[in-house]
């Protein structure tokens, strides 16, 4: 075992200090040391996107970062993307309205990815949204509701036949 190191993180606006092995992934520090279990771990090798968080403003895979690498950074997890007045952010609300989740395992990753994406790209096209969604996998929904949620949050029309998946 290699020596533990001190890592300081600001997560969702709160400062934390943890003592961890260098090999500890950011996703595991968030879940196990900080008890922020909203960040899900699916594949643990970069393929599924369930672990997506924002580090210094950019959406990244938390399972592909060692916590020690982001010492001193600002991290935003799914617990931190909701407005403080208790409402949902536009993409979260649209996910609810468009039935964008079933089991919910993939949802935190989609929410963090699209919250970040729509902040940076206020006027995406329909194709842009589909490409932006391609980094997150969902085993339940067939994506239709998720794509419609992204369209709704971006202010794009939802095609009439898009609810039943018949346009793909």
């Amino acid at each position: 075992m290699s020596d533990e190191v001190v890592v300081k993180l600001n997560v969702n606006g709160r400062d934390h200090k943890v003592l961890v092995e260098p090999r500890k992934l950011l996703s595991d520090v968030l879940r196990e040391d900080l008890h922020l279990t909203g960040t899900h771990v699916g594949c643990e090798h970069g393929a599924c996107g369930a672990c997506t968080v924002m580090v210094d403003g950019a959406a990244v895979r938390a399972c592909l970062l060692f916590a020690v690498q982001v010492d001193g950074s600002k991290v935003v997890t799914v617990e931190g993307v909701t407005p403080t007045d208790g409402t949902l952010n536009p993409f979260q609300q649209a996910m609810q309205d468009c039935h964008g989740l079933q089991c919910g395992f993939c949802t935190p990753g989609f929410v963090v990815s699209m919250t970040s994406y729509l902040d940076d790209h206020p006027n995406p096209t329909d194709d842009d949204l589909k490409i932006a969604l391609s980094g997150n996998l969902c085993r339940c929904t067939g994506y239709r509701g998720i794509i419609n949620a992204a369209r709704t949050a971006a202010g794009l029309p939802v095609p009439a036949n898009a609810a039943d998946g018949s346009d793909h």
Partner: protein
Amino acid sequence: MKPSSFNYHAPTRVEEATALLAEHGDGAKVLAGGQSLVPMLSLRLASFEHLVDLNKVDGLSAIERVNGHLRVGAIVRQAVAEHSADVAASVPLLSKALPHIGHFQIRNRGTVGGSIAHADPASELPAVALALDATIEAAGPGGTRKIAAADFFVSTWQTALADDEILSAVEFPVWGPGSGFAVEELTRRHGDFALAGAVVGVQVSGDTVTKATIGLFGVGPTPLRASAAEAALLSGADAAEAGKVAASHISPVDDIHASGAYRTQVTAVIVRRAIEAALKEARS
């Protein structure tokens, strides 16, 4: 799974990084964006006693014009290069290739140098470096040296870098007016590694093609130059003919994703499409 234990080093100078590599030999590995290395560590396909993180090293994150080249520092994030106006203006082929790498979350972390040093034969950026005759700068304990892209890619995941060297920058030649570029690839899903891909650059004067380069990826152990197809294009062949020539010179192997025969057939089509798109841009 979890990566096995390692000692973490975060040097701030290139000399410190290369000294660590020299000291620890093949027990040490460079960590850049981590988008290829960390999955391999987590799957326990690889383990190292020492990881040397380049992310805090000074002087590796600039994009600058030098002597007719665009010099891109090793740890420039793929997303930064993708959105750089300098890159779009000077090396459009690089701008066009970057969005094909994985997904935006991957490119927020992955580095230009990491992709080239990783040398996955199905990767876009090694093919861009090869097609443009880029120069790779390697820094070692004894100083720096320049390696032509044609000599850099040795085999799958193998490069001309020594154990104690890092890739410090890549210099891409800047093409003049009248040129056009295109990237075409076939993937099962957006963001996947390509089953077969092509990057093309052409320069025209009137109806004549005066300069042509074609790089292929996903169809050999390294990225490949389609030299015979380039020559055909320069002597007046059309895009479809050049595509067939490119396909006739490769022998990709079968794997679980596609057969070699399929990849060969696809190569003829994507080379044609990429040439058509590049010519259209050059003439516009």
